[in-house]
């Protein structure tokens, strides 16, 4: 009993210390600093393409590093790989389990990954003569909510079992397990230099991890509900989170705290997905209310809306060249805008 009390006292003391240290460097707000910056232009993006082919709710999408191809996952039990310039489907990968929650494509374009309520991450080689399952990564004790390849030999996964994991695709085994969250992990994003990644979870916190040693370096709090979406600011020094509490937040890694918040009293829909334009100035956020709002990341003002979907926007993504944005929805369509 004694040790528990001592530990609790020390934990509380450390939390107070961290809060005080954050306050000590909180010498201004980004709103104040950005007041002198010219407003972002009113952003009016047009729906250039609608990709039709899925027969049920779309749960995930991911652009290829070639800026042209994209993989999408739907609970119709398929992954579709699209040529977004023509709108054609290039490959269809049938899934063993249709309860898919996410998909991703390797930077090489050779491999795609998917997973969901089957608790597994299935890796498929789409460049083989016909799409061929390469690995079934089976060790998570909860659903697979998100995955991102580091290369053709390594992939990061986030799971409802509250852990994230780095897998070796040559052996199919776990290399590193990232344990610290106390709620289901819902999303992850890799830093531009690939040395760290961030995860968002149902414990309302986001955590920054060292890819190689598995250590949690920083924890970001402030949200009051599940964090469903997370992205790095392109400089790699800040992260944006989207939550069921209807807000987005920007946390600066070096100041170790929230530096901006994106909310609107009129908005009472949870954020499902988030992506940034290539300069980081624009934040695209998909919401449960079928829309995607566009925010000025510096001034925290809404500067546009993408409306056109007939159901929740579940996933969103901007290709590396920044030439467009794709939204995926429970209405079974993907829309490309620019």
């Amino acid at each position, binding site marked *: 009993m004694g040790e528990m009390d001592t530990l609790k006292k020390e934990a509380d003391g450390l939390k107070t210390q961290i809060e005080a240290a954050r306050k000590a*460097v909180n010498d201004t707000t980004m709103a104040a600093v950005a007041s002198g910056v010219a407003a972002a232009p009113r952003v009016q993006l047009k729906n250039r393409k609608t990709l039709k082919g899925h027969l049920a709710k779309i749960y995930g999408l991911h652009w290829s590093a070639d800026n042209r191809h994209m993989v999408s996952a739907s609970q119709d039990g398929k992954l579709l790989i699209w040529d977004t310039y023509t709108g054609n489907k290039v490959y269809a990968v049938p899934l063993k389990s249709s309860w898919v929650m996410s998909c991703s494509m390797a930077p090489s374009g050779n491999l795609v990954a998917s997973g969901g309520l089957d608790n597994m991450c299935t890796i498929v080689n789409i460049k083989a003569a016909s799409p061929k399952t390469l690995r079934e990564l089976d060790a998570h004790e909860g659903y697979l909510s998100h995955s991102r390849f580091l290369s053709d030999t390594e992939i990061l996964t986030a799971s409802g079992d509250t852990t994230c994991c780095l897998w070796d695709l040559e052996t199919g085994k776990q290399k590193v397990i990232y344990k610290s969250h106390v709620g289901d992990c819902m999303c992850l994003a890799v830093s531009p230099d690939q040395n760290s990644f961030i995860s968002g979870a149902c414990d309302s916190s986001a955590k920054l991890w060292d890819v190689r040693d598995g250590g949690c370096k*920083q924890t970001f709090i402030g949200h009051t509900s599940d964090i469903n979406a997370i992205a790095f600011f392109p400089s790699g020094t800040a992260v944006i989170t989207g939550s069921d509490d209807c807000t987005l937040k920007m946390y600066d890694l070096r100041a170790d705290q929230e530096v901006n918040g994106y909310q609107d009293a009129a908005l009472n829909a949870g954020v499902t997905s988030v992506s940034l334009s290539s300069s980081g100035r624009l934040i695209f956020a998909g919401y449960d209310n079928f829309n995607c709002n566009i925010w000025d990341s510096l001034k925290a003002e809404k500067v546009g809306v993408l409306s056109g979907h007939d159901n929740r926007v579940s996933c969103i993504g901007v290709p590396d060249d920044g030439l467009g944005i794709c939204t995926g929805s429970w209405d079974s369509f993907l829309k490309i805008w620019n």
Partner: protein
Amino acid sequence: MLVVGIRLEACQPDSLGQVFPQDSIRLDFKSLTSGVEAKMSSKMPSSNNIAQARRTVQQLRIEASIERIKVSKASADLMHYCGEHAKYDPLLMGIPASENPFKDKKPCTIL
């Protein structure tokens, strides 16, 4: 090892005329773990809880020891990054029709 019973709520067909119970399944999985944690912490301290508490303290020690920069500097740096890269940001600057790979190219008819 917990065995999860999947609870299928009354399923209404959605706009596509299809019935998908996975929303309620996802909610069950989402709330499961937090429910378990709450249950564990209300029990008498076991060796499990002490180990968990030690890990928490260890983690907090790491997080308390990092160097932090001022919010003014952090904000200025982020603003500077946006400023430097704005002119190369197609979604901010707009894309001329001739360079837009997603724009449908209409066939030209020569009269």
